[in-house]
């Protein structure tokens, strides 16, 4: 999904477009593909000095680990690795030593080995924050490396244009992002994520007809694609085409049996069409799936009233009132906290 790519916020673009590959200018260590920023992370930013949050084994020496980390900071990665291995000889399950080993391997450009060391650390201690942190960093860097390899392998591929588009999007340059996305689709028309991105951008900018074209492209290939069905329904609603809006909200609800929002929206559209009996069905399903939908209860109350069920309507209105009261209380508490915070300092 495009939003996931945005997590590499500019990194693919920045690193691919402007940073050198090969040897790091800063310290001369091996940087096979990812450039200076990655190296900076490996070389300089490589660790905390005290052992992590899990209790080190008595056989593993805290002083030894500290010496290993110091070696990392001194740029002596081989020594850091050797220290880690010594520690692991005493206790092969030492998470701290495995993390140190992984960091030393990363710093030497031996990424698959580093990946394997950090994986082992996480196998022994899945929630170890240091292991998670360095694995998060390594995996992010490895993703950049793969994307750069892709750019070398197929520079004009749809996927590369897509990645460039994501980078522009993350940097807030919507026009250039759209240019890249369109280029991606021209080369590879079946890139669902790209069509969806263009559809969403068009919809949020109020170009509903254009958005619908992109949604339809996806739906031709994947008729039950929930985001496209829901997005198309929203477009029709904005275009005041209630019949189509109802049709697409219904299809979206069928495509995802656990989605409350599509049922709520369907109920609202049916109420607008003066079809309260059908709205009751949709809204009841919505609040069953998400009992916190205050607006859906309120609408359900109106629908029950219109269908001649005052008792059920009263129950729904009461539920809506309770949820509203809870919401107000929660907002007041938040506001009070915000007001009190500076006074407490």
């Amino acid at each position, binding site marked *: 999904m495009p939003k996931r790519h945005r997590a590499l916020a500019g990194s693919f673009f920045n690193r691919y477009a402007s940073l050198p590959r090969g040897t790091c200018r*800063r310290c001369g260590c091996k940087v096979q593909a990812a450039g200076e920023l990655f190296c900076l992370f490996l070389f300089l930013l490589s660790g905390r000095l005290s052992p992590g949050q899990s209790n080190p084994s008595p056989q593993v020496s805290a002083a030894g680990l500290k010496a290993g980390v110091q070696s990392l900071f001194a740029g002596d990665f081989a020594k850091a690795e050797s220290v880690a291995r010594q520690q692991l000889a005493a206790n092969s399950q030492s998470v701290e030593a495995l993390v140190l080993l992984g960091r030393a391997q990363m710093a030497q450009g031996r990424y698959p080995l580093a990946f394997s060391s950090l994986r082992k650390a996480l196998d022994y201690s899945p929630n170890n924050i240091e292991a*998670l942190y360095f694995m998060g960093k390594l995996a992010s860097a490895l993703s950049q*490396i793969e994307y750069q390899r892709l750019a070398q392998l197929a520079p004009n591929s749809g996927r590369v244009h897509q990645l460039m588009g994501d980078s522009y999007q*993350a940097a807030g340059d919507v026009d250039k992002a759209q240019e890249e996305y369109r280029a991606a689709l021209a080369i590879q028309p079946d890139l669902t994520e790209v069509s969806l991105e263009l559809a969403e951008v068009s919809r949020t900018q109020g170009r509903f007809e254009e958005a619908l074209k992109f949604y339809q492209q996806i739906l031709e290939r994947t008729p039950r*694609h929930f985001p496209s069905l829901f997005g198309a329904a929203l477009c029709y609603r904005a275009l005041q085409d209630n019949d189509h809006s109802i049709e697409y909200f219904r299809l979206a609800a069928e495509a995802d049996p656990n989605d409350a929002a599509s049922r709520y929206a369907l109920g609202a559209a049916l109420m607008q069409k003066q079809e309260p009996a059908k709205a009751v069905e949709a809204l009841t399903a919505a609040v069953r799936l998400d009992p916190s939908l205050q607006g859906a209860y309120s609408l359900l109350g109106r629908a029950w009233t219109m269908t001649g069920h005052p008792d059920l309507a009263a129950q729904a209105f009461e539920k809506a009132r309770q949820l509203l009261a809870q919401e107000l209380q929660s907002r007041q508490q938040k506001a009070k906290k915000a007001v009190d915070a500076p006074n407490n300092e």
Partner: protein
Amino acid sequence: MPLTLLLLLALVPAGDKVKIPDLPPQIREQFARGLEAQSAGNLDEAERLFKALLEQGGKAAPVYNALGNVYQMKGEHKQALAAFDVAQRLDPKDPVHHSLAGVSLLALGRPREATRALKQAVQMQPESVVFHEQLAWAYIRLEDFPGAIRQFVKLLELQPDNPEFRYQLGHAYLDYSLSCFRKIKEADAGSARLHQEMGDQYLVQGKLDRAIESYEQAAVADPSIPEVHFLLGQCYLRQGDKEKAMKAVDQALVLTPGSPPALALRRSILGSGTNR
């Protein structure tokens, strides 16, 4: 998207041609007609022909497989699964039945069972690109990103120049990275490492003030991480605040005496212009 892709992949025999069962000629002919109807998109007719074939004594694994395939194309995965189960019993050595069952299990929201079935298919035919790809998607569905990474690495061993596999491997690494940071957040939302990562992200985006804010939070949450002080030193220097920069880099040097990058930063601070 993965499910759709899987369904498409499921229609592709795993490097083999569709097996024609060893049946009497008349029945073989009907089987071929069923396959034709299926490939023409006439799924009801294909279903009718395959069912009739089974009633006429053509109870062979490929017929159940073909029928299951038709159900799969119609989105009727429970029936598809039942047909693939029979096909597996009749011909346990054919990995295609396991693979197709895996696809239907995924569609039915049973990713663990799907992964088991697809692993079996991969073990039976380790060189099949389709099976590895299906298994990769099953792992993604389970949010087992290391599992998916292993499969995409294997796929690139099989097809080193395939740009799509390269893209998907990059994507799987990215997903894994994000899942690691999500786990840190779940374990400790105030973790220094989380603040540090936020700072890194802001820095990449060129938002210096927000990066500093995050690094400062990291330094408060855990003052023993030298790189946080180092980064703060760098950021303050970029802001032109030499005094704060020097204080931060000195703190980094207390934690890592003699660190060459920290010493280099210190020299940069000393050599830079006046304080803002």
